């Protein structure tokens, strides 16, 4: 039961990663790429959580939470970079 559900989750998340990578390559604006990276982090959280279910290791959930923390800081830093770049 849970194996089938995690298989479906992996498939849907894989489609999501492919679509997000397409946006990351296409752009067109730098902010679009930053947004795609943010989305990629969230998809990564989903993949790690699904992996935690598949391997029955609850430690992976901590890694997913850490990735969420890191993703927020990265997006905030990129937004600040966009602001600074225009100011020059």
């Amino acid at each position: 039961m849970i194996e089938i559900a995690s298989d479906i989750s992996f498939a849907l998340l894989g489609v999501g990663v492919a679509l997000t990578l397409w946006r990351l390559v296409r752009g067109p604006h730098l902010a679009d790429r930053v947004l795609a990276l943010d989305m990629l982090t969230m998809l990564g959280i989903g993949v790690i959580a699904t992996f935690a279910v598949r391997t029955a290791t609850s430690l992976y959930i901590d890694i997913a939470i850490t990735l969420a923390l890191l993703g927020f800081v990265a997006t905030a830093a990129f937004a600040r970079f966009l602001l600074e770049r225009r100011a020059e």
Partner: protein
Amino acid sequence: MSYAAAILMIAGSLFCMLAALGLIRFPDLYTRLHAAAKAGPIGSGLILLGAGVASGDAFTLLRAALGLVFLVLTTPIAAHLLARAAMRARAPAASIASIDEFENSSDPVPVQTPGQLSR
């Protein structure tokens, strides 16, 4: 318990997939932010919650729920920061957008950057 976890995980990954689809289909950055900043955290948060339920351990479920709360708290902030920076960098809006209230102002969103503060 196993059924609840399976439903949560499939619903979450569906939300994630639809958010990524929105990233592709929407016409400009400002509409794409809607898709990524709303469906994204709910999707990965639901998967986290599903993983917590599947573990069958109350403490793990609490940690997963804390992860969801953290995502729901921080993603709107990150999206707002990004929208503000993009507005200031004049990221183009789609042609169907009807109102640009910052069209005639030289500085769309006045902000104090750390560099300005130190000067």
